């Protein structure tokens, strides 16, 4: 593989730089403390719109659908260049563009794709992912939210949890049980739901960081027209897997707000002798971070050749969240009590405070460390699967 831009990629990078230099400055973000969430989201929507108008919101998609007929490598080039500007790029945008719409493009009808693609791309529709439940996390197929057919509608009852950005989302992707009489993976169906539908109640969850990005979502007699079902009845698990595959691939992506190992290296340098005991470990973490970066280059090269990401892609999030957690802990430790004040005005420390909290969530969200290790062991190394005593039992007979 080649880590240099090809002449074509270099030309694309130059074009992107040029475009960003005339468009991105107006969207540079102020410090989080100086901005409300609503303001932040409004800015993110309009930045998304500007990108979509130029085709940069979906580089890989066909021009006819708002893309640029580009390559995955061009998408990475854009993200790298975009990261030089502190513009609002939030998960509430990417749930739609990276998880929902790519799933629709595989499994939905032409009408459904047409209906949701453009508004999502232009930032008019923000999405949330109504998958996890209080008793269905790692064992996601154990979910209990029911969908019962009633004429042209489905009536939904149940509770979702850990639903990021449900309080700002316009629409949600939802999996629910449509047949409790068959095995748990077989009785699920996949829907899209307008979050303003009567019967949906979103309650914010206050997190350990004090922020509230996650929510509980209560669904009481929520009516979803059958036209909003994606794929066949009973095919929900398969479709959800497409979403989760995309999620694991994109959760592993780079973010400008997360602490980097080079930040830690600089911090240790500044700390002088106090930093010495941490140096080897910091170097190992730095090497892991670098390895992950080039691992992604290899994956993207494979993607650009038409391969689909293999199960080893699970390693992206596994490594990223663990590296972030340990780096953050070391950074806060070496800085001592000075790092503990939450209103720190040192941007490097703020990043590590954020990393200290967020990495703990990231090790759970989108597949826990343990689930990801199982995947790698079973699908990459070919080891036997865990015992799943409930696998073939009808859901209604499970305890």
């Amino acid at each position, binding site marked *: 593989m080649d880590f240099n831009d090809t002449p074509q990629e270099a030309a694309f990078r130059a074009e992107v730089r040029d475009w960003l230099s005339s468009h991105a400055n107006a969207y540079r973000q102020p410090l989080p403390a100086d901005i409300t969430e609503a303001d932040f989201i409004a800015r993110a929507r309009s930045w998304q719109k500007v990108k979509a108008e130029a085709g940069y919101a979906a580089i890989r998609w066909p021009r006819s659908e708002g893309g640029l007929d580009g390559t995955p490598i061009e998408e990475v080039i854009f993200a790298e260049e975009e990261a030089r500007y502190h513009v609002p790029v939030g998960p509430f945008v990417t749930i739609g563009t990276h998880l929902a719409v790519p799933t629709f493009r595989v499994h939905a009808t032409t009408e459904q794709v047409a209906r949701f693609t453009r508004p999502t791309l232009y930032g008019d529709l923000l999405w949330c992912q109504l998958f996890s439940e209080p008793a269905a996390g790692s064992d996601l197929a154990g979910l209990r939210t029911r969908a019962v057919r009633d004429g042209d509608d489905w009536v939904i009852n149940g509770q979702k949890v850990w639903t990021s950005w449900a309080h700002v989302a316009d629409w949600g992707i939802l999996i629910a049980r449509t047949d409790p009489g068959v095995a748990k993976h077989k009785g699920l169906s996949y829907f899209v739901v307008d979050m303003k539908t009567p019967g949906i109640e979103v309650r914010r969850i206050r997190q350990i960081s004090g922020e509230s990005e996650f929510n509980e979502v209560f669904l009481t007699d929520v009516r979803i027209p059958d036209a909003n079902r994606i794929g066949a009845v009973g095919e929900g698990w398969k479709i959800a897997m497409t979403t989760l595959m995309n999620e694991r691939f994109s959760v592993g992506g780079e973010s400008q707000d997360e602490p980097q190992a080079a930040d830690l290296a600089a911090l240790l*340098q500044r700390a002088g002798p106090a930093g010495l005991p941490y140096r080897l470990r*910091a170097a190992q973490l730095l090497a*892991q971070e*670098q390895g992950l970066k*080039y691992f992604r280059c290899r994956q993207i090269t494979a993607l650009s050749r038409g391969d689909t990401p293999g199960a080893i892609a699970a390693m992206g999030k596994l*490594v990223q969240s663990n590296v972030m957690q340990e780096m953050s802990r070391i950074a806060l430790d070496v800085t001592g009590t000075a790092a503990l004040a939450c209103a720190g005005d040192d941007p490097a420390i703020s990043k590590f405070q954020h990393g200290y909290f967020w990495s703990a969530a990231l090790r759970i969200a989108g597949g826990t460390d343990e689930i990801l*290790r199982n995947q790698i062991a079973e699908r990459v190394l070919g080891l036997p699967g865990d015992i799943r005593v409930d696998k073939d039992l009808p859901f209604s007979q499970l305890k």
Partner: protein
Amino acid sequence: MLRDNARRFLSETATFERWRRHLDSGAGLDRALWREVAELGWSGAAVPETFGGLGLGPMELCVLAEELGRVLAPLPFIGTASIAVDILSRSPTPEGNALLERIATGDAVIAVAGLDADQPASKLVLRDGRVDGSLGAVAWLEQADYAIVYAGEPDTPSLLLVDLAGAGVERRTLRLIDPLLPHGSLTLTQAATTVLARGAQARELHARARNLGAVLTAFEQIGAADTACALAVAYVKERHAFGRPVGAYQAVKHKLADMAVKTELARSNCYFGAWALVDGPDELDLAAAAARVSAIDALDYAAQECLHLHGGIGYTWEANCHFYYTRARVLASSLGNAALWGERLLHAATAQR
């Protein structure tokens, strides 16, 4: 192509049975294997064609290093065929040129010493064209015809070529924890020497050779880590406990997943290192250090847990685990340990900001 051919040849030739026979024979170097490898062109892979080599670049050396690492081949490939060739072809001398021809045919083995330190070994001093001093564990010293050493004062270091058959050269065998990789200590008393490079040029060649060695050794390490992982996977699928293959238990599966992850990260750094050797001189310090640090970690973990996952049998001479366990340690220390390369990595990362 090269990889497939190498893998096919080595899978037939380079076996644990052969290593055991070789150890029993008491010979330091498997000359027959080294000759076969030379006939395939590997010892002269990087030697310029004018001196009878194949004139290939670092990429091909990386492929060969990984394949040799995969079978734990006890050969002086990195020192002789890679580092020595790199130094000798960048600092032409009549002696060096003649030596390149002999390396290509497999007739000469070169021991390379002193690559780990940033500064020349203080105990090795060049005065009036003669060199005095001593060095600790040097790989392939007794089997080598020449040594390349880094000597002199910190402000004017020199890269020297020493004829080990000459006067004033004393070699002593060391018993190493990996019996397949012979090491020796070297004492030089007014030994004749050819100066390959001095001052800034010596420093530059030394830094290049060190980075080249780091990347190639990292490839050797991921090759070995891959096979250690495969060996462990095969065993835990076969061995049953409590009515299931032990590989079905999460405690075991997760160790193996971590093994695969560490190797995959190191492999990614290795590829970047290979690229930097050819195309990215500005990023070579960072790339080589990252490859080195992560490959040490990957093979250390793979070798250690491969033995552990075999249970008691893994601790015996009959199982093959010990070959990885001791090789991991030797490769982790050669060229400078993880802490040293970690410092270089942190330095390169902060310098780039």
